[in-house]
């Protein structure tokens, strides 16, 4: 048994446990910010280590856990997302509660859940990783003890999330019963299109779509995004969604590949609906986080539509899109955090006059939003292009057209936000301050978005290699 393949996960667990122990040993009054720096440094080390595993393609525990390029791609995405989120949210977390040490430890443990999901090669590992991530997110969403919105959001997420898990699990039990195995490749070998099998498949699809907030399983997303502390919202939007995508891809393309004829139509409908609902409803939002929630529903629709191609080109588009979506979201949430630190609320109105107070952050927000809308030369354009090209090849022209039209509409509401920043007067003349680490994260997001947009080659190569390792 080659336990070395699990090193990165084990390292993150140890890091989290160390933070818990240090938190206990530190004097009660002392600020926990040093623990945050410790977490960031540890994660950077683990990120560097994961590059070591490139080229590996092996399984542990009787094929339950696989390390290949696909898993590594997602793991690195999750680690980078966590590092950036931690960096821009030190000030915000400090104001949240006294137990900030717990916050860092929990965030790291949820990261472990996502990493396990990326590597999961059987239904049990999928389930355990998924629940590790989700249960910790229930806690994190309700972490803001000052706000009753936070506990409300946490409770809603908990109830809907566990019900969705139960549905997913019921589907898994049927799939297990009718194939006699829970390992994905063996499921693929024994699969038949019996009604019970299709029931299991449908229930599992519903469960995964809930985690990715695909319409019509999206009802939790706006409330939870609005009520949760901003760093948690950012992680939910970027990493938790990407983890859902990773699992969905592996399960549907490895285990259920032979039932394509049955799930392709449903997936196309779900993707189309998500684009329409996410973008239309976002127009009326007045809260930045809620607006980003609806935008994330639409983006999930775009990502999901890549599954329709069911080949390496489509998966490549999805992976590429997941990365650029993460990068754009980091920028948008960093700016939201800065504004929230200033005014204590996250209305879109609070962004007014940002262009005079902090021109740099206004530019970052604009570029991030336009990247999500898919305007060239931002990264979002290239990502949408890859996905649409891949699915047009397979005859899903109407989805590509719908996506194009909807991204035109989305430009309108993203521009509404930009207009608030550039043409409205600021509410007061207070000095606008933002910490250095937040500015650095914003700068990284800006550069990455433009770089990927203008020169997509290297990332596309990486995504392509990762996508090919699935077959």
């Amino acid at each position: 048994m080659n336990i070395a393949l699990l090193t990165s996960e084990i390292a993150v667990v140890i890091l989290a446990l160390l933070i818990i122990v240090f938190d206990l040993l530190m004097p009660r009054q002392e600020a926990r910010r040093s623990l945050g720096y410790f977490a960031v440094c540890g994660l950077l080390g683990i990120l560097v280590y994961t590059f070591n595993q490139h080229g590996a393609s092996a399984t542990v525990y009787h094929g339950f856990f696989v390390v290949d390029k696909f898993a590594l791609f997602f793991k690195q995405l999750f680690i980078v997302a966590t590092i950036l989120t931690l960096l821009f949210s030190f000030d915000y977390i400090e104001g949240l509660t006294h137990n900030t040490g717990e916050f860092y430890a929990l965030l790291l443990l949820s990261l472990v859940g996502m990493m396990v999901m990326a590597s999961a090669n059987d239904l049990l590992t999928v389930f355990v990783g998924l629940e590790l991530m989700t249960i910790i997110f229930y806690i994190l969403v309700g972490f803001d003890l000052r706000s009753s919105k936070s506990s409300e959001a946490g409770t809603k997420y908990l109830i809907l999330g566990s019900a969705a898990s139960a549905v997913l699990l019921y589907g898994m039990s049927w799939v297990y019963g009718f194939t006699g195995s829970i390992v994905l490749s063996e499921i693929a070998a024994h699969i038949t299109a019996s009604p019970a099998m299709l029931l299991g498949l449908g229930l599992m699809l519903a469960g995964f779509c809930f985690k990715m907030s695909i319409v019509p399983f999206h009802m939790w997303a706006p409330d939870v995004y609005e009520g949760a502390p901003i760093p948690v919202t950012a992680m939910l939007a970027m990493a938790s969604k990407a983890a859902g995508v990773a699992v969905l891809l592996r399960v549907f393309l490895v285990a259920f590949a032979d039932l394509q004829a049955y799930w392709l139509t449903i997936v196309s409908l779900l993707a189309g609906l998500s684009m329409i609902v996410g973008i239309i409803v976002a127009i009326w939002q007045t809260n930045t986080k809620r607006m980003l929630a609806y935008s994330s529903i639409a983006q999930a629709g775009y990502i999901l539509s890549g599954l329709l191609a069911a080949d390496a080109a489509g998966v490549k588009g999805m992976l590429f899109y997941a990365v650029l979506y993460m990068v754009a979201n980091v920028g948008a949430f960093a700016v939201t955090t800065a504004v929230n630190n200033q005014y204590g609320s996250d209305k879109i109105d609070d962004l007014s006059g940002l262009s005079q107070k902090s021109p740099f952050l206004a530019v970052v927000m604009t570029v991030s939003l336009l990247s999500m809308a898919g305007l060239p030369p931002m990264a979002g354009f290239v990502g949408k292009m890859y996905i649409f090209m891949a699915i047009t090849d397979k005859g899903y022209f109407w989805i590509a057209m719908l996506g194009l039209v909807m991204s035109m509409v989305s430009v309108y509401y993203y521009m509404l936000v930009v207009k608030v920043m550039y043409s409205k007067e600021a509410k007061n003349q207070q000095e606008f301050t933002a910490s250095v680490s937040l500015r650095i994260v914003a700068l990284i997001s800006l550069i990455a978005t433009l770089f990927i947009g203008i020169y997509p080659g290297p990332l596309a190569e990486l995504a392509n290699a990762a996508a090919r390792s699935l077959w």
Partner: protein
Amino acid sequence: MLLDFGNVGMLLLVALVFPLLALGTAFFIRPRPRQHGIEKSLPYECGVDTVGETWVQFRASYFLYALVFVAFDIETVFLYLWAIKFQELGKFAFIEMFIFLNILLVGLGYAWKKGALEWK
């Protein structure tokens, strides 16, 4: 197949009839309060009369104990499997279980240090 469910049906019938019978008997032979006055219907040699609300709220501290208990309760489930196969699994599983228990111990220590086990 349906005949097998018949046994369950019989059990269900008994389960329904038995409490109804007991309650019904009590209903018929109980003293009528209207006839003998309120004193007659008070409990006799069956404890103390309640004072105030009978629905009391318990302290939240019970809940913290319960949480710690649940953590170790579930741990036992995994310990069982490990214990059954202990001889065959060997050194690796022994160390693994040791690590598992230690993680739980860190959790217990955390709860202790944060004051979850204190009765305030």
